[in-house]
């Protein structure tokens, strides 16, 4: 086991920059998740870490050793692939022992270690089978087994759960978490799924267009997103975004009212502020800031309800290219035009009927509308000068 130090890694194909100055220090035994939309460079980073692709510049150290240009097989890391990449012509036992065999480990020891790993993953009865005779979940376990048998310095996992169905995915998520707890091996895990990142990581690295957006533990990531992109990416349903209006009094208005409890500030140069409000921070009934809405859609999920309503025209924001939305551009357009409240244990809510909702302005996240960077109250105050 070892710490990993990634320094200023860049990767480009011609004019296309896949990775821009990626730097990250990973502690021994840490579970780090690289997360971001497809094409953000997270998988490329993992491949560079594994030695399967060359970096254009930068260095990588595993432990004390500079491995920037060391062969993948000599880095002492193990990798789990999205499609598992089990060797179809070998049995499960041979698959798991392949890496040890390549390193010249005696056959007896290979058998022993494969048996150990198989027992811990509950796949002992599959050892003589071939990959095509296994179910998706079993293949996943074998792929994990192949990694742990090696007892490597680090595990690299490239979207290992995305080929599983939803239920199995939740189960394997817990299992990988438990495995990490037990073995304590440094793990770098790549995914596009923020839920996986939030539930599994010690630390999350959010990426977009080859650049790191924020590095933080899940709590901080949720509570203090560094910019609009992170704020929109983490959390489900995603954060609501509103454009703040400058009131004549110098304060900021939302839903036609000057917000109480917010410092009456503005940014220099007439720049705009975007406010973020998490759906779970909107409550039923009166509160510090109370609004009346007419829901356009109500989704009941049993214990909780998602209530959708329109953003007042003056508070709408254009979010294209700023906030990541899985589907398409019209989706992100929508996201700037409507709000979601996530209400727990409430009575019947009907579409079109007036509904009183409230929120605490202190819970608002404020962002510079131009740069997307999060503003602390101090920033906004400074902006007045």
């Amino acid at each position, binding site marked *: 086991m070892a710490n990993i130090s990634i320094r200023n890694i860049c990767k480009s194909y011609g004019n296309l920059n896949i990775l821009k100055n990626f730097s990250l220090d990973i502690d021994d035994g840490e579970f780090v998740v690289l997360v971001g939309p497809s094409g953000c460079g997270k998988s490329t980073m993992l491949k560079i870490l594994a030695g*399967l692709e060359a970096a254009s510049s930068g260095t990588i150290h595993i432990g004390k050793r500079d491995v920037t240009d060391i062969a*993948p097989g000599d880095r002492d890391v193990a*990798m789990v692939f999205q499609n598992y*990449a089990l060797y179809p012509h070998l049995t499960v036992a041979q698959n798991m022992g*392949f890496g040890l065999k*390549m390193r010249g480990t005696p056959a007896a020891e290979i058998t022993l270690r494969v048996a150990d790993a198989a027992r811990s993953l509950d796949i002992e009865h599959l050892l003589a089978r071939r990959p095509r005779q296994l179910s998706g979940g079993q293949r996943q376990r074998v792929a994990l087994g192949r990694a742990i048998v090696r007892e490597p310095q680090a595990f690299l996992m490239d979207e290992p759960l995305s080929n599983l169905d939803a239920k199995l995915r939740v189960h394997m998520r817990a299992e990988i978490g438990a495995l990490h707890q037990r073995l304590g091996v440094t793990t770098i895990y790549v995914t596009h799924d923020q839920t996986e990142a939030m539930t599994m990581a010690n630390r999350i690295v959010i990426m977009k267009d080859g650049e790191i957006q924020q590095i933080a533990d899940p709590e901080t990531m949720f509570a203090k997103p560094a910019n609009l992109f992170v704020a929109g990416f983490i959390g489900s349903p995603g954060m609501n975004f509103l454009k703040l209006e400058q009131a004549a009094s110098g304060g900021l208005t939302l839903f036609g009212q000057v917000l109480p409890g917010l410092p009456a500030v503005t940014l220099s140069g007439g720049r705009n502020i975007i406010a973020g409000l998490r759906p779970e921070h909107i409550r039923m009934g009166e509160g510090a800031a109370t609004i009346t809405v007419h829901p356009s859609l109500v989704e009941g999920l049993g214990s909780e309800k998602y209530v959708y309503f329109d953003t007042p025209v003056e508070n709408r924001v254009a979010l294209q290219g700023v906030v990541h939305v899985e589907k398409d551009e019209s989706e992100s357009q929508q996201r700037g035009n409507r709000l979601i409240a996530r209400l727990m244990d409430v009575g019947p809510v009907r579409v079109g009927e007036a509904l009183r909702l409230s929120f605490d302005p202190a819970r608002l996240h404020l962002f510079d509308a131009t740069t997307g960077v999060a503003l602390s109250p101090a920033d906004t105050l400074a902006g007045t000068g």
Partner: protein
Amino acid sequence: MKPRILTQLFLYAAVLVTCAFLIFPIYWLVVTALSQPDQLRQLPPRFWPADPNWSVFSKILGERPIGLWLANSALAAFGAVTISMVVSVLAGYSLSRFRVRGGQSLGLFILTSKMLPATLLVIPLFGIFRMTGLIGSLWSIIFAHATLIIPFTTWMLKGYFDTIPRELEQAAMVDGCSPLGALFRVILPVSAPGLAATALYGFVLSWSDYAFARTFLTNAQNNWTANLGITTMKGEYISNWADISAASILIALPILAIYLFLERYLVGGLTAGSDK
């Protein structure tokens, strides 16, 4: 329900008639081989050999060096396929996996050379083989057949490698293989069916050649291939069609056997590089 039964009946009839009609020449070859020579000089012809003359095969094998011709054909095919496969496996893998500078134009050239007429290459090859003393030697057609086979096998194999996920060799490399080790320990074993189909396809191409053998081997009787040998039988002033047919069956048999095995790979092979 009734019209459906009728269409079904009609369908069977149509299939039966079509098959019978199209396969008839092959059937006729067999009937001819098994007929007594004098029966072939009668009209109307007999469509069913009353007393099949099975001894024609042993007779023809005794009279003509068909065994030698078949062995020569097999040897040439084996040599040409071996050379072609070694070269095409490596090149096909490279074209499938690496972005090599000029790789695409090489691929295009190979694809175009599938369409070269043999009659064009045969002249300069004749010159080259004359100079190197290979005329009359099986090596001449081994190399000549390689020009036919390599373009096909390279594209077939590239197509086959494209269907194998890259993660497989990446996993092997993380497990400690060198890139070449990954190719030999993982990719090639996994590709075994594709390699077999490709090699057999190359075998068919070599076995079917006539132009090169005719040009390079006509004066070297001991190295005649099956196709060359049989055309010399046909050219004799009295053609004994029963004998020729029997010899033809012996020559076609290996290819028909391969065809039965290859049938399901055929489409992929024929269309490789020319269609999606």
